[in-house]
């Protein structure tokens, strides 16, 4: 272990409460360089909260975050972005009344330097390229994203994170939720390609365990505000993960009934 390169990301003893709700109790996990880590857990388990702590959106109540072995204090999303953390949020963070290409470059707008004016031509050009590259078709990149389907919107959010020049760590919070089988396969292919290219480490949250096992190297389960399970993907199965997730519910039911 000690001979290996430091983890791309390591979080230790993270806790986060919202008023009386304890979203995260004591979470520690690590993400190796170039690894794809699957993170699963029930709705409300705190997966999105953990992601938002790593992106600098929420400040944790306790715990530490290390990037490449160095402790960082994330004070803002823009700071985390500068450190190479890019995210597909579960809510996608798209602005409905803005065009596809302005959403694609939200807060990464390209300007005609040194003039502070937007270089719309370049942004449109790159937006087309990114979407073509993924293989997702969007009728026009000049329409507002409000007009698009859930899958198309998700594709934009994914492309925005993935094609950031400086992405070292990608956090994908249920990026397949609204997608059809074909679009979903495109995104999984994309993750696979990113993995093969090796430059980026990825945390993927998904409820479809087959998807998770298809692209992930390792799986973590988040339950009761802690990581309760950590295994290489090769050593587990859809059945085992399903069993793990429902067993507690079964126990509670039979326990209560008996």
């Amino acid at each position, binding site marked *: 272990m000690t001979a290996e390169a430091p983890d791309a990301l390591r979080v230790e003893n993270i806790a986060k409460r919202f008023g009386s709700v304890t979203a995260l109790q004591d979470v520690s996990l690590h993400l190796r360089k170039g690894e794809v880590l699957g993170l699963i857990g029930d709705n409300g388990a705190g997966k999105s909260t953990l992601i938002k702590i790593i992106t600098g959106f929420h400040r944790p109540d306790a715990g530490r975050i290390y990037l490449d072995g160095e402790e960082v204090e994330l004070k803002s999303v823009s700071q985390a972005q500068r450190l190479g953390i890019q995210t597909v949020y579960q*809510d996608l963070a798209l602005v409905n009344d*803005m065009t596809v290409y302005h959403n694609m470059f939200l*807060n990464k707008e390209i300007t005609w330097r040194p003039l*502070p*004016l937007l270089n719309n031509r370049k942004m449109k050009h790159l937006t087309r390229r990114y979407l073509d590259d993924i293989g997702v078709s969007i*009728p026009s990149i000049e329409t507002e994203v409000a007009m*698009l389907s859930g899958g198309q919107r998700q594709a934009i959010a994914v492309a925005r994170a993935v094609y950031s020049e400086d992405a070292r760590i990608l956090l994908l919070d249920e990026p397949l939720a609204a997608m059809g089988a074909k679009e979903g396969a495109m995104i999984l292919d994309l993750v696979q390609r990113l993995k093969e290219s090796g430059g980026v480490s990825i945390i993927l949250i998904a409820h479809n365990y087959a998807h998770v096992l298809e692209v992930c190297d390792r799986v973590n389960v988040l339950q009761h505000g802690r990581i309760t399970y950590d295994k290489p993907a090769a050593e587990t199965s859809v059945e085992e993960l399903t069993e793990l997730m429902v067993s507690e519910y079964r126990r509670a039911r039979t326990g209560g009934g008996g």
Partner: protein
Amino acid sequence: MATQATAEKRPGFFPQLLEALVRRQEAGILVVSVGLILYFYLRNPAFLTQGNIQTLAQFMAATAIVASGLVMVMILGEIDLSVGQAFAFAPIVMWIAYDQLLLVLPLAVVIGLLATAAVGLVNGVMRVFFGVPSFVATLGMFFLLGGLNVILVAGFPKPAPEASWLKSALGAYPYAGIMWALVILAFMHVLLNYTRWGMHTFATGGNFIGAREAGIRVDRIRIGNFMLCSMLGGFAGILEAMRINSIDPLAGGAEIMFLAISAAVIGGTPLAGGIGTVFGAFLGALALSVLRNGFTLQGVSAFTFNVILGITVLIVMVLNVYVITRLRKGRRVT
């Protein structure tokens, strides 16, 4: 896929025109303004004499400048009720700097504008860091400044600075106001639609959490736009003071604030957040000014003007809520 959109059967000319008018409110309000101008001209040719055009331009300039700042705040889904008091505050501070502290006029003008920037800063900080809704925060500022303005000049209007090139440029020259309004329109239009600041303003107003998630510094955007709005209000006030050659603590106030909000709403900034146009607000100010001035020429009372203004604002809002949302839904691609 791009071919699919163009391959769709094109709608006829009139449906297209109608849709353009509804979708792009600037186009609609432009048509209305031109129609109003024609109507008043036909009723009374005096409407388009040079003297009246000058009056119209002067009245419109102040409303348009105030409205262009309000658009930024309204895109954020916020409001600034105090902007009409900033309108009176800037020339008063300028007068103190010029007449009491004996500073040169350019410096006095800058100080007047900085004072309104501070007003906007307080508005923004109240909203952002204390979580006070902007309606309430700027209502407080409305009364605070309204009182302060009168106290600062001990209750009486003060004379404007003596004649100079700067005074002419800042409003004493009859067309200075409208020229400034056009320059500010161009500047604000570019700021809103062709800069990162503008994009971030739309994003913050359209999806606040999403904008934060994307790393946009939403606090800075909100506070900055409150400051911009106050400063534009103050600048319009300085132009007005130079024009009427008097520094009046009761200038501006609620009237110009409400007119400017109306101009913005009519022009296509519905205060719902995420949507707005400076150009539309300018045309809204034009339409309102034409209507008001035309009525005055015809001897129709200000109360009738108010009734019509009220009906217009209501109709525009209903159009906004129903027609536009329906159009959008109808066009949604699945």
